[in-house]
């Protein structure tokens, strides 16, 4: 008898029956599950995790170097750095005597939650510390992959276009913080700060914005103060 409708037709052994399986599952659910495990671990261990994102060359590593130099006497910190190739950025961070681990993704264009779980274990990230994750320089793919971080910080420099928030809306929509970097170069470039902020706020009305020059250490204090405040909240 037919399995599908109960009729008397007999199916030959070679015939197959299609059936529908309801799945109703987010494509990213596996990564999201791992991210949740990371997030629970970070909360339990009082680890404040910042996922730093930008295009290549916006100044992520320089911001980290100068932020770490300013904060390391008060806060325990460690850094996970993602790049397709080389450990150049890790070498720059390691000079500051903070634990740093390089993840080379090879062909991969973003970090995912399982890579972070492994790195946290390998780095032996301390309880009550600040963990920076410098993501791969890319404004598209990393926006999709939750790592379990407390905050996504997207960085944009004034040597790029003012309309970058409009061009890469997913990233700016996902971010909690936007840092406008290389402000010292503003007199030399055609960058409209007001327009850029207007676009960013239209895409993400809750985004908090810092304007600074990481390499010249100008305007860094509000950003550092925010990190201090968030650290105190996370560590207590």
């Amino acid at each position, binding site marked *: 008898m037919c399995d599908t409708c109960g009729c008397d037709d007999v199916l030959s052994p070679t015939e*197959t*029956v*299609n*059936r*529908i*399986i*309801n*799945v*109703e*599952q*987010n*494509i*990213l*659910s*596996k*990564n999201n599950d791992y991210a949740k495990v990371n997030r629970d671990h970070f909360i339990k261990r009082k680890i404040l995790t910042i996922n730093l994102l930008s295009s290549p060359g916006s100044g992520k590593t320089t911001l980290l170097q100068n932020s770490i130099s300013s904060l390391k006497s008060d806060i325990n910190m460690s850094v996970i750095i993602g790049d397709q190739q080389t450990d150049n950025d890790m070498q720059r961070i390691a000079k500051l005597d903070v634990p740093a681990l390089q993840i080379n993704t090879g062909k*991969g*264009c*973003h970090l*995912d939650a399982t890579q972070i779980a492994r790195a946290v274990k390998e780095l032996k990230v301390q309880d009550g510390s600040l963990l920076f994750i410098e993501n791969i320089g890319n404004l*598209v*793919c990393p*926006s*999709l*992959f939750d790592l379990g971080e407390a905050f996504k910080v997207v960085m944009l420099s004034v040597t790029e276009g003012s309309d970058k*928030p*409009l061009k890469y*809306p*997913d990233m*700016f*929509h996902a971010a909690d913080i936007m840092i406008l970097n290389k402000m010292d170069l503003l007199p030399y470039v055609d960058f409209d700060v007001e327009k850029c902020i207007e*676009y960013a*706020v*239209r*895409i*993400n*009305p*809750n985004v908090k914005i810092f304007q600074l020059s990481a390499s010249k250490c100008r305007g860094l204090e509000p950003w550092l103060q925010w990190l201090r405040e968030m650290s105190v909240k996370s560590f207590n």
Partner: protein
Amino acid sequence: MHELSLCRQILGIIEDRVALEGFSMVSKIVIELGQLACVDKSTLSFCFEISSEDTKANRAKIEFLDIPGIAKCNYCDKNVRINHYADLCVHCDNILTDIISGEEMNIKSLEVQ
């Protein structure tokens, strides 16, 4: 190209289902895709064709169900169709804060044998 990573995630979900439901082949994958989701349909289909070789989903067709982008305006309290996160309310020209739909990226169902 994150679509390739998404294909790996899709194949992972299918593998889990094979273990649960015991099928030998997937002929169709129905994906709900929000219009605001950061996914290109043709790239995803292309990447899937390549990454599903030697799996039970080899030659499976992907069917997309489009979910429109809708935001609720907190100023005029109306629901508004949007194509972009930067779109303003068409009724009162204010910034939209609450996305109601359009970010979906779900495997809805599998047709299997």
